[in-house]
C-alpha cells in the first residue's frame, strides 16, 4: 500500500527540542473525514413506512382509582393475570391480559354445558353419546399428559391402568355387590397399585425402552382379559357393573345425565392436571425431563421421588376414571387394551399439542368427533385422523396450540432474513429496526459509527502500521491518531486490553467483559516480551477487526 511518494509527517512537539532532529514518519495523504459522509448521505435501501394501527381497544390504566384485584379463593392466583405498563409510543398507561387462557376455558366450558341445547334432534343419540366418550377420553388424556407432557416420560401404560381399574371394579362389584359410587374409589386403589408397578421400571428405563415395556404391559392385560373366563372372555368383556344413572330416566335424559357426569369427570381431571402441572411437582418434573436428569440432580432436585409421585397421582386418577368407566358403560371391554385405542389417544395428544391441558382436550374433541360423529365416513375416518396426525407431525412443532408460537418464530425468521437482505451489517438502521430501539440516540450512533468506520478503513496503510510499531504511545501522525482515538473510544464490551503475566517480561492480549465482576477473556495464547510489543499486537488486532466489519 505504501507508495514511494507518500508524505512525511513531522512530529510537531519535537519543535520544542531544537537540539535534536525532529521525528519524521511516512504517513498517508490527507483525506477529509467528510468523504464518507458525502458518499453515504443518500440511503440506498428503499424505506417503507412503519407503525401499526391500533385498531382494537386497549384498556387504560387505573391511574388514581383503586384497583381491587380478585383471586381464586383460597389461592393466591388472580382471576386474570393483568399487566399494566406504559405505551412507549405515547407514555399512555395501558393494561394487557397477559394470559387469556382462563377466558377461553370459561367460554369453552360454557359451550360444553350448553351444547346439548344446540344438537339437532336427528343426531341427538350419536352426538350425546360421542360427547360423553369425548369427556371421558379427555379426562384420561389429561392424566396421561402429566406423564408424557409434564414429566416427559413416554409411557403407554395409561390404558392398562384404566382398563385394569375398570375390570377390577366391575369384578368386585359383581362379586361383592358394591353400590355404584364405590366403584371409582375401588378403581383408584387398583390404579395406585398399578402406578407403583409402572413407576418402578421407570427408575431404570427411559425413552424407547420404557415405551416398549409399557406397551408390553398393555398387551399383557389384553391377552389376560381375552383369555380369562372370569373376566368375560366368552362375552367379549365383563359387564354387570351398577350404573350411576337414576332409574326411570328417559333415553334422552339418560344421555344428557351421563354427558354431564362425564363433563364433571373431565373437570375433575382438569383440576388434577392443574394441581400437579401448575405446582411445585410440575415444575420439578419439567426441569428434570429425559436427558436433563443430571442437571436437575445437580441443582438438588430429587427427580426420582418426583417421578414416583406423578406416577402414583396420575395412576390413581386414571384408576378413578376406570371406575367411572365401569359405572358409565356398565362394565369393561378388552377394547380398552387394544392397540388402536392407544394409537387414537396418542393421536389426540399429538394433534392438540404435548404438554398443555387445552391440547389434550381439543385433540380429544377432534378425534372423537371424527371417530364417533362422522360414522358415515366408515373406515375413511381413520384415514382422516391419520392424515391430520401426519400433517401435525410434519408441519407443526407443538400441535395445534403451538401454532401461535410457531407462527411468531417464523415471522421473526422472515423478519431477520428481510433485514439481512435490506441493510448493511452495522450500518444505518432501517425504520423497522428503529422501532425496536428505545434509545434513539443509538440510532444516530449507528449512522455515525458506520461512516466513521468506512472512513477509517481507508486510513489503514503499511506506513501507518509501521509508524505505530515504531512508537505505540505518544504523538502520532493524523491518520494514526484518528485510528487510535476511534479504537480507544470503543465501548467496554470485548475491548482489548493487555494482561501482565510477569512484570516487564511477559504480556498477553485479553478482552474486557464490560460487565462488572466478570473477568476479561483471553483472546490468544501468544506472549509478548515488552509492553510496546503488546500495544502493537493489540493495535493490529483492532485494525483487523476494523477491516473485517
Amino acid at each position, binding site marked *: 500500500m505504501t507508495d514511494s511518494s507518500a508524505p512525511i509527517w513531522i512530529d*510537531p512537539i519535537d519543535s520544542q527540542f531544537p537540539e535534536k532532529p525532529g521525528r519524521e514518519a511516512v504517513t498517508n495523504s490527507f483525506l477529509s473525514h467528510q468523504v464518507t459522509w458525502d458518499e453515504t448521505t443518500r440511503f440506498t435501501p428503499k424505506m417503507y413506512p412503519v407503525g401499526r394501527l391500533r385498531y382494537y381497544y386497549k384498556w387504560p390504566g387505573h391511574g388514581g382509582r383503586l384497583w*381491587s384485584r380478585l383471586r381464586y379463593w383460597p*389461592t393466591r392466583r388472580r382471576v386474570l393475570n393483568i399487566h399494566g405498563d406504559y405505551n412507549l409510543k405515547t407514555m399512555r398507561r395501558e393494561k394487557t391480559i397477559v394470559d387469556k387462557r382462563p377466558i377461553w376455558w370459561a367460554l369453552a366450558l360454557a359451550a360444553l354445558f350448553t351444547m346439548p341445547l344446540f344438537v339437532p334432534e336427528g343426531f341427538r343419540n350419536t352426538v350425546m353419546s360421542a360427547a360423553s366418550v369425548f369427556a371421558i377420553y379427555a379426562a384420561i388424556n389429561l392424566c396421561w399428559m402429566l406423564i408424557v407432557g409434564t414429566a416427559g416420560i413416554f409411557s403407554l401404560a395409561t390404558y392398562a391402568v384404566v382398563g385394569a381399574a375398570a375390570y377390577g371394579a366391575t369384578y368386585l362389584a359383581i362379586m361383592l355387590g358394591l353400590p355404584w359410587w364405590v366403584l371409582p374409589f375401588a378403581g383408584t386403589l387398583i390404579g395406585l397399585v398399578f402406578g407403583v408397578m409402572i413407576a418402578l421400571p421407570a427408575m431404570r428405563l427411559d425413552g424407547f425402552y420404557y415405551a416398549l415395556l409399557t406397551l408390553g404391559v398393555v398387551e399383557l392385560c389384553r391377552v389376560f382379559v381375552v383369555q380369562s373366563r372370569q373376566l368375560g372372555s366368552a362375552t367379549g368383556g365383563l359387564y354387570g357393573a351398577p350404573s350411576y344413572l337414576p332409574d326411570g330416566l328417559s333415553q334422552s335424559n339418560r344421555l344428557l345425565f351421563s354427558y354431564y357426569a362425564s363433563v364433571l369427570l373431565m373437570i375433575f381431571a382438569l383440576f388434577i392436571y392443574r394441581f400437579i402441572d401448575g405446582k411445585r411437582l410440575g415444575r420439578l418434573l419439567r426441569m428434570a425431563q429425559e436427558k436433563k436428569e443430571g442437571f436437575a440432580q445437580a441443582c438438588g432436585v430429587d427427580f426420582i421421588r418426583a417421578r414416583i409421585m406423578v406416577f402414583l397421582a396420575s395412576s390413581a386418577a386414571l384408576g378413578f376414571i376406570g371406575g367411572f368407566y365401569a359405572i358409565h358403560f356398565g362394565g369393561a371391554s378388552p377394547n380398552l387394551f387394544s392397540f388402536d385405542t392407544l394409537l387414537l389417544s396418542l393421536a389426540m395428544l399429538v394433534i392438540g399439542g404435548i404438554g398443555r391441558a387445552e391440547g389434550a382436550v381439543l385433540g380429544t374433541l377432534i378425534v372423537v368427533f371424527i371417530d364417533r360423529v362422522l360414522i358415515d365416513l366408515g373406515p375413511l375416518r381413520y384415514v382422516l385422523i391419520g392424515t391430520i396426525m401426519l400433517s401435525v407431525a410434519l408441519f407443526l412443532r407443538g400441535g395445534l396450540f403451538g401454532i401461535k408460537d410457531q407462527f411468531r418464530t417464523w415471522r421473526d425468521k422472515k423478519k431477520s432474513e428481510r433485514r439481512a437482505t435490506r441493510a448493511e451489517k452495522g450500518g444505518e438502521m432501517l425504520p423497522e429496526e428503529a422501532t425496536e430501539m428505545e434509545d434513539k440516540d443509538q440510532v444516530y450512533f449507528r449512522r455515525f459509527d458506520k461512516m466513521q468506520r468506512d472512513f477509517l478503513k481507508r486510513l489503514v496503510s503499511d506506513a501507518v502500521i509501521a509508524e505505530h510499531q515504531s512508537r505505540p504511545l505518544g*504523538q502520532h501522525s493524523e491518520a494514526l491518531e484518528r485510528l487510535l482515538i476511534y479504537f480507544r473510544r470503543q465501548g467496554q464490551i470485548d475491548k482489548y486490553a493487555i*494482561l*501482565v503475566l510477569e512484570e516487564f517480561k511477559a504480556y498477553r492480549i485479553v478482552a474486557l467483559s464490560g460487565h462488572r465482576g466478570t473477568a476479561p477473556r483471553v483472546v490468544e495464547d501468544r506472549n509478548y516480551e515488552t509492553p510496546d510489543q503488546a500495544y502493537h499486537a493489540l493495535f493490529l488486532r483492532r485494525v483487523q477487526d476494523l477491516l473485517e466489519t
Partner: protein
Amino acid sequence: MAEKKVFGYADKISVKPGDDIGFYVHADGTRSVDAQLVRLIHGDAHPAGPGYREEEIACVADGMWDVRKQFTQVGAFLTVADPSGHLALDGSFSLCTFIFPTNPGGGRRQCLLGRWDAFGNRGYGLWLNPDGSLEFGFGDGNEVDYVDAEVPVLRNNWYFVAATFDARSGVATLYQEGVSTRYNSLLSKVANVDFRSHVRETMRFRPLNPPDLPFLMAGAQDRHTLRGTFVTQCLNGKLDRPAVFGRVLTRDELDRYRDTATAPAEGLIAYWDTACGYTERGIGDRVIDRGPNGLDAEGYNRPVRAQTGYNWQGRDDCFRLAPEQFGGIEFHDDAIIDCKWELTRTIKVPDLKSGAYAYRLRTGDAKGLREEYIVFFVRASKPTASILFLVPTGSYLAYANEHLSFDAEIMQPLAGQSPILSEVDIELYQTAEFGLSLYDHHADGAGVCYSTYRRPILNMRPKARMSSMGVTWQFPADLSIIAWLEHMGYDYDVTTDEDLHREGLAALEPYNVVLSGTHPEYVSETMLDATEDYIAQGGRFIYLGGNGFYWNVGYHSDDPWCMEVRKLNSGMRAWQARPGEYYLATTGQKSGLWKDLGRPPQKVFGVGFISEGFDSARPFRRMPDSWHRRASWILDGIEGEIIGDFGLAQGAAGGIEIDRYDLTLGTPPHALIVASSGGHSDNYQTVVEEVLYPYPGLSGSHDYRVRADMVYFTSPQDGAVFSTGSIAFSQSLPYENFDNNVSRLLANIVTAFSKPGKLPGWAWSAEEKQWR
C-alpha cells in the same frame, strides 16, 4: 482446595511506636499465612530504577498467623434497634416512605423497609420486586403472600409509596403516587407519565413476626450456613421520611402525608425524620425517629446523607439553607465502608524508625494473590528529624481499588493507551467486597462519594501499577520519594494526611521542611489551613507532585478512615453530583475544587493543575530565572539545560499530571519559574476548569499553557516553597540508582531547606541594574 488468596487491612493507617494496631486477614485455600514485618523502601519494579526494595524487620508477631475466610456485608442500609418489638406488627399496620429508585428491576429484589427474613419467609416488607414494581408482602414462615402495583416505578423519579394491611379482613392496599417537583426528578410533567397505582387485594393469611427478626430499611435479612445472618435485597435509591403505623391509614391520610410529609399521630409507631439532625457541620449516620418510641435508625456502610428530598424546590442548594428539603438518604447495594472482619492479630508497634511499613503475608508461591502487604505508616514518637514526608493518605483513599480500566469507557482515550492488567486487578474487579474508589460509579450510575481504608486496598501496595496508565500511582509512586530520602541518607520522619487533619499545624511545626507526595490531590480544609499556616510562619514546603490540593474532602471526626468528596460542575472529574448535592455531609462545606472555593493551589504552592496526559512525558528545560542568584543554587552541579529526560514514568520528569504558574490564580508575585517542561503530546489536554469554551488547540502541541513549571518562592520568616508541578518528577529520582540531575536538583533544595536560618540566595533581592 480453593485457589490460595490472602487479603487484609489494618484498623489504623498511622501509628507511633507503642500504639496498638489490629490486622484483619481473609484467606482462601489456606489456614495460615507467613507474616513478616517489612519496611517499604522502593515500590516500583521498573527496570530503569533500582527495583523493588523492602527490608525485613524482626518483630515478635512475625511467623505463621492463623487466618480464615471472612465475610463482608456489602450494601448500605439502616438498622433499627427495637428490643421491645414495637415493629413486630401482629395487628393492622401501614408502611410508607418517599422513594427515588435509581436502579429498579433488572431481576433484583430491593427491600424498602420491613422486618423481612428472606431465608425463612417470615415477617413483612415493602419492596421493589424483580420487575421493578412496588410490592408489599409477608410470610408465615412457609409461604409468601403479596400484592404488587400496576406499573413499574421509573428510575430517578420521586414517588410516595405506602402499603396498608388490615389484619381483620386481610385486605392489603398499595399506594403509589409520583411526587416530583420541577427540579428533583428525571422526568418533567410534559412527559405525560402517570406514576400512580392503587391496588387492593385480600391476603390469605397473616404475617408471622418472630421476635428475633430485625427491622431494616433498604435491606432484608438472609442467612447462610457458614456466615450466619446477613443483609440482602439492598436498595439502590433514596428514601425520604419513612414511617410505620399500627393501623390502616386511609387514602385521605396518605394523601396528606404525600403532600406534607407529616405523619398523623394516631397509631404512629415510628417516623424517621431523615431531614432532622442537620447541623452547620453536617450530619451523621443516625436517623432520628420522631415517633413515640424513639426507634432511631443507624446507617450501615454509610448511606449518603445531605441528598435532596422528595420536596426539593431547587432554590436552596444546601441542607444548611432548607434542611426540610434534604430528607433524601441514598443507598447503594455495592457500598462498603468497613469490612468489619474478625480480628486476626493485634500488635503493639515496636520501636521503629519512622517510615512506611507493612505486614507482608505470604502463602503458596507468594506471587500475585498469594502475597499481601498491609501497609501502615509509623510516625516518630518525638520528632527529631528536620525533614518530614507528608504521606497523602487521603489521596490513596480516593484511588483505593479503582476500576477505571474495566468500567470507564473514557479511560483509554484519556490515557492514550490500552490498559495493562494484572492478576490482582482482575481479582479486584471480580470482588464486590473490596468496594469502589472515588473514581468509580455505583451500579446505578451514581458516583462513589465515600472511600475508606477499613477494607483491603489492593492498589495501596508496593509493586502495584495503575493498569490504565502503565505507571505506579499514589503509594507505590510515593515510595520513590522515600527510597530517595533513604538513598541520600537524610534523617526524616513521615506523617499522614490523617494526622495532619487531626492535629493541624502541630503536625508540621517541628520540621524545617515538609515534602508532599507525588499526587496529593484530596485535602480537607484543616489540612490546607495547616499547610498554609506552616508555610506562612517560616516552614519550607516541597510540593513534589502534580494536580495537588485540588478536591475539598471531609472526614467525620469519629471515623477518620472514611473520606467524603462530591465532584461537581468543574474539574477533571469521574462523576458529577446531582444538583443540590454539592455539600459534604461530613462537614457541611461545599465540596468540589479548592479553586472553585477561592483557594486555587497557586495561592499557596505557586502552581496549579493545567493538564494531564499519560502516553508520554517530557523533560524540563531551565528557564532564564534559574540563573538568578535567588534560585541558581537550586541548579548547582547540573550541566546543560535539560533536566529529567529519563524516568520511570513514561521516560521523563515532566508529565502525567502537570501544574502551571498563574498570577491570575494567586501565584505569589515574587515566584520564579526555575524550569518548565514543554512539547507535550496532544494527549495532554487543558483541564476543564481552565476551559470556558473548548476549541481546537487546547492540547499539548497547540497550547503554551500545557506545561509543568518548577516554581520557587520564599515565604515569611525564611520560609519557602518549591513546587515541581509534575507527578512524573519523583519517578525520575530513582533513575540510574538516584544518580541523575533530578535527584541532584532535589538534593540541593532539601539540603538547603532542612537547615534553619537564611536560605541561599536570600540576599539577591535588590532592584536590577543591568549592563547586559
